[in-house]
């Protein structure tokens, strides 16, 4: 199935969970990433169980502390 991750369309296995996607996308500091699916933010405790569907739009939000 196809989903959109960070604005990019990707082919992923059917029923992939958020946790699996985080791993597959090699997300840095996965413990601290925020995830939205179709503009709804998912709770961290649901990442392992929440399966994605064809056409879902997923966003990863990262802490970014630099500025000086």
């Amino acid at each position, binding site marked *: 199935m196809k989903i959109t991750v*960070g*604005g990019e369309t990707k082919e992923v296995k059917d029923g992939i969970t958020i946790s699996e996607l985080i791993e597959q996308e090699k997300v*840095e*500091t996965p*413990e*601290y990433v*925020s995830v*939205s699916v179709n*503009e*709804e*933010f998912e709770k961290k405790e649901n990442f392992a169980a929440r399966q994605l569907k064809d056409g879902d739009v997923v*966003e990863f*939000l*990262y*802490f*970014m*502390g*630099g*500025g*000086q």
Partner: protein
Amino acid sequence: MPFTNDQLERYSRHIILKEIGVKGQKKLMNGSVLIIGAGGLGAPAALYLAAAGVGKIGIVDADVVDLSNLQRQVIHTTADVGRPKVESAAEKMKAINPDIEVKTYQEFLASDNIMDVIKDYDFVLDGTDNFPAKFLINDACVMADKPFSHAGILRFKGQLMTVIPHESPCYRCVFKEMPPKNAIPSCKEAGVVGAMAGVIGSLQALEAVKFLTGAGELLTGKLLTFDALTMSFHTVKLPPRGDGCAVCSDHPTITKLVDYEQVACDFDPKHPV
């Protein structure tokens, strides 16, 4: 007061814009912005806001200019190494535009002084390099109902959002709690490309100009991310304001400012990044 001939000429490229015009330029000249951090993000923001004629600009930084700053903090020069950053920054800003007032704060902002500093400004720009400061600025601005621009940069990436407290989601609506010390890579550990600070700091300056003049739509309710390696901008919609947020919900659990441990981007306040 009518514009002088010099002012009409200096600001002619603003005045000609229908979104700014004479009215908008007057608003800039009567407006005030506080820039927290005279570093990577603060440098371009301070230069552009001074050039734009923002009437009063406050600049906060406790540090002195370090040689390792010059790769991106374009408001400071080699001759400024060892000087207080606020002094070096104010000098350049006044050189660009002698009409503006620049107020310097050579201090760290903490729970006991931040409210007093931000209260005198229309808009706050977060150009700090550590999470304790970013959370403190968010919480203080929410409590004081002070609109602000949040931003962060790392490696070839940057992101920013604008917050109108109690109207649009705040930093804590998205990033609930401060990450533990050393959990997230810092610029000193991971690096940052100098021009990234220029891009994101300039975007923050644009938000300040838009806020003061009322031009266009502010970057509220969304986070703008920029990846220089792929040259792509991307906007992510944020959760609704206050939805379970500890500080900006209608029933906040954080009602008093606290000082988180001051771990800077480089974890050594004597040698700023």
